[in-house]
């Protein structure tokens, strides 16, 4: 099993916290209301447990936007919302003037763009903190249970993954969403190396 030292764990949570702060600001600009984000929690889980943590139920379908990143480390970043709220979010984004028919037609594309903005805002902040570059794929849109979405993004059922789990809440509209980062063991080691470099830079060599 992969382990982080307490210091590495703290640093990683703080770095993601800054990234999530930027993502919250972007989200807030998209929907024109305050967005509250939880302090991220990090867990080492397999895919099934990760899905359960995200509330995997047949009845609760979610729409997800994923992007694959490569560079300093590899990760699959996923943004998830309840499927029945996605039209509300798109409406908040484009405003009241767009007719419902047009809005429905552009729902998938608009959600992909929202995912693109939020995920890049978070990942871009991480890249800047690490003084590295991460290049992202185009956003992929998925609908299904959280288990189906995690498997569609390539997470192997038995592989241990780092789930960085962030809740965010749109206060006025009672919409809860999640951002998750899935990393395999190789990517975790690469990420750990970046954290060590960052710690050495900010604290000086041990």
């Amino acid at each position, binding site marked *: 099993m992969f382990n982080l030292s307490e210091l590495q764990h703290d640093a990683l949570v703080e770095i993601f916290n800054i990234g999530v702060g930027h993502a919250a600001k*972007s989200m807030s600009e998209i929907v024109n209301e305050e967005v509250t984000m939880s302090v991220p929690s990090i867990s080492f889980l397999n895919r099934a447990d990760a899905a359960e943590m995200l509330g995997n139920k047949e009845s609760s379908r979610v729409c997800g936007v994923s992007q694959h990143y490569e560079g300093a480390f590899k990760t699959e970043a996923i943004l998830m919302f309840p499927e029945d709220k996605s039209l509300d979010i798109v409406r908040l*984004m*484009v*405003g009241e*003037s767009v007719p419902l028919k047009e809005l429905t037609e552009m729902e998938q594309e608009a959600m*992909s763009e929202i995912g693109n*903005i939020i995920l890049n*805002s978070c990942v*871009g902040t991480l890249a800047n903190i690490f003084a590295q570059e991460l290049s992202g794929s*185009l956003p992929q849109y998925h609908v299904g249970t959280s288990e189906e979405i995690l498997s569609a993004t390539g997470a192997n059922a038995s592989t241990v993954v780092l789930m960085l789990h962030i809740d965010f809440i749109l206060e006025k509209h009672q919409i809860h969403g999640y951002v998750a980062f899935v990393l395999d063991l190789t990517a975790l080691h690469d990420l750990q190396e970046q954290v060590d470099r960052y710690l050495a830079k900010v604290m000086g060599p041990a």
Partner: protein
Amino acid sequence: MNETKTVLVVDDSRVSRLMARQFILSKKPSWVVEEAATGEEAIEKVKTLSPVLILIDVNMPGMGGLAAAEQLRLACPTTHISLVTANVQNATRNRANELGIGFMEKPITETRVHALLGALD
């Protein structure tokens, strides 16, 4: 002034193009907003258009926004070109600087678009 000028919005996201169009026309109702969904399409369009401003996304299918912006810079040396991107990484900002083009963070907001248009006056 009701002078007609053209802005080219290059983005693979239709919703982003729609928002950019709304925000440009709310400040400059007499201007013309042309759209392209890829860098390749933008390069083709500037052969017949003379935009005063090109807003271009980075992460797009095909050649991508940075490679397209490089060619657009050569094709339209006096046009103000700005990246409009969710990619907030310093590496991307630095590349924009090297190309002599602007950088605007997504999401596209009315405030950001109006500030940019104001700077063109």
